[in-house]
């Protein structure tokens, strides 16, 4: 599993909010936050935009 370095200060903040937000671990919270960020960046790509639009079509699950 790859490791990523973050400052102690940020880690403490993340740890505090991970529990409050209902995440079972800091890892889960960080993974989710990064996934979300990456998906936003992917969203700028036209293919990803098309996929997002299609996802709302009930005929296709």
């Amino acid at each position: 599993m790859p490791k990523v370095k973050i400052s102690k200060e940020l880690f403490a903040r993340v740890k505090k909010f991970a529990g409050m937000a209902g995440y079972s671990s800091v890892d889960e919270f960080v993974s989710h936050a990064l996934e979300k960020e990456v998906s936003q960046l992917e969203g700028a790509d036209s293919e990803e935009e098309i996929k997002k639009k299609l996802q709302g079509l009930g005929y296709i699950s």
Partner: protein
Amino acid sequence: MSNKKSFSSFGRFIPPPAFVMAGLLLALSLVASCGTKTKPTGKKVLIVGIDGMDPRLVDEFMSRGLLPNFEKLMSMGDFKPLTSSIPPQSPVAWANFITGTNPGKHGIFDFIHRDPDTYMPYLSTSKTEGAPEDDSIALGKRVIWLKGGVAENKVAGTPFWEYLAENGIWERVFKIPSNFPPAGGVGWSGSGMGTPDILGTYGTFTYFTDNPPEHPDSIGGGTITPVYMVEENVFRTKFVGPTNTWALDEKRPYLGGDKRNYADSEVPLTIYVDPENPAVKIEFQDNELVLSQGEWSGWLPIKFDMFPPFLGARGIVRFYLKEVRPDFKLYASPINMDPLEPPMPVTNPPEYAVEVAENCGYYYTQGMPEDTKARQADLDILNDGELFQQMMLIHDEDKKIFKWHLDQFKDGLLYYYFGSLDLGTHMFWRLHDPSHPAYDPKWAKKMGDPVEKLYVMMDKIIGTALERTGPNDVLIVMSDHGFASWDKTFQVNSWLLENGYLRLEKGVDREKVAYFRDLDSGKFGVDWSRTMAYGMGINGVYINKLGREAYGAVSPVEYREYVDEIAEKLMDYVDPATGEKPILVAAKSYETYKGDGLEHAPDIVLGFKRGYRGGDESALGKFPKEIVSLNKSSWSGDHCVATREVPGIIVTNQKIRKQDPALIDVGPTVLSIFGIEKPAQMDGEPLF
């Protein structure tokens, strides 16, 4: 049809010229509408369009005495099956109705078309495109756009109501599918199915919860927003709106050198949880509302600032408080465009939407607003009962707007569309039919038969229509297609792969391919040089044609040979579990469609036997392991089968003279009632 409207697109939000243009167009349309005086004809034609109403189900419920108004209307005139389009999908069918032509002329063949350059799917009926970045100037963190985006209605041809309007006849056509952006010209119409939400999608709900799933981004059609209780009994969160192309991100204005990183638009939201009762107070912008658990809110306005104070995207949203404790669960509908000031046009002329909203209140502008995605998600975001409640809210709103239209209707044509029966039958077939693989006895016991309830509800609408119909008026109740159970799924791409018509690149795992791309590498997983055909959309098969597809492999000389061979073999395919042949008709486009609009036509259109449907996976370029499988999803009824399996209905107080009435005949019928000669391009014929 005036197909292009230069207003805005979701990628490039209302640049000043377009903003000015919007005002100008509004002014022009006001002039046009005021200037286009209508003349009385002494005739009234009322058409009630009910998406998905099925003749077999009408028969069934009528025989049990549940549809007295249908029975009454039938006794005054006629009741016949109405031939749908090929394939019988709503966008195709309604385009047949709107134009009176076959798909070969109007150019819509499926919900989904494909781009032959990229083999990527896209929604067929409209296209929204932002202006190129060259038409803008970045000044610091601000971006000034010199040109607006374009929204284009892809249905080719002239809507039949336009001929009425051109002849000075009063007409209103409300929420009709396949009409986004609304057809231009002098006709008054509103867009229905195909109208996006404020994000430009077919509907993206937001689900605020303090117990988010592990992979919230995998939910199709919605956003899961985890909420944090940073103060006692207070959640602070936000709505994320359209990308703000008028501003660059404060912290990272550029990505990878000079690629603009546009800012998000957001609206902060504060939720105060009642410490004792299962209730909340929600505050955002000027809104403040109290909601109890199990309660739906009304519409609330929301504005995403783009270039304050000049520009913003206005929407409307409504909430459902599902649970307060132990988990917090708050559903927010997709943010619909505000009909009073929509970022993109939802009616033509624009003031039509304003008039409706001013008289009837805010209303769902998004097409297909019944949030089936929230029910389909595995997270139980809306359960069956809650989805049905939402359908009732939509229907109540529709009823109100229908009655208001009836009050305005003194002469000419009124067409009004109801969509809940269609989506209700899709989702609740499994509660109507105990033999369906996804039949749920618990919910069937709890809810009864929701499909029956929807038919009874529509019967009441017909009752209202009958009350308002005089002895010389024409009343037509019609649907675009019928319905069938969707028990089994047929994956045409898997069939093409296993029969050697489609090849994957060496080493690619068929189950790790989507949109024909290998999910591991992001490159094509399909070896196009050895691929003769591929499936895309719910009913379509395309030949990988040289000179048309980017990596075509079939020469024009071999084209028909492949079409004929594949069509024949598909029709011979036997479901190994039952011995049935799932494909009744494999219609070849070269002998099915007539016209100049064949650019997007699939080469073969699959017409399934009742009970079967094309798979979602195959429709988006995937290759599931099984060619045929049981359908256990809540989307349990469908109509994307063979046209002859699912005719729609026509019930009218007139005698129908034509033997086999079809959707394409309704427009010419209306024109003939008003003494307007059928335009040459229309394929249909008058019915009466």
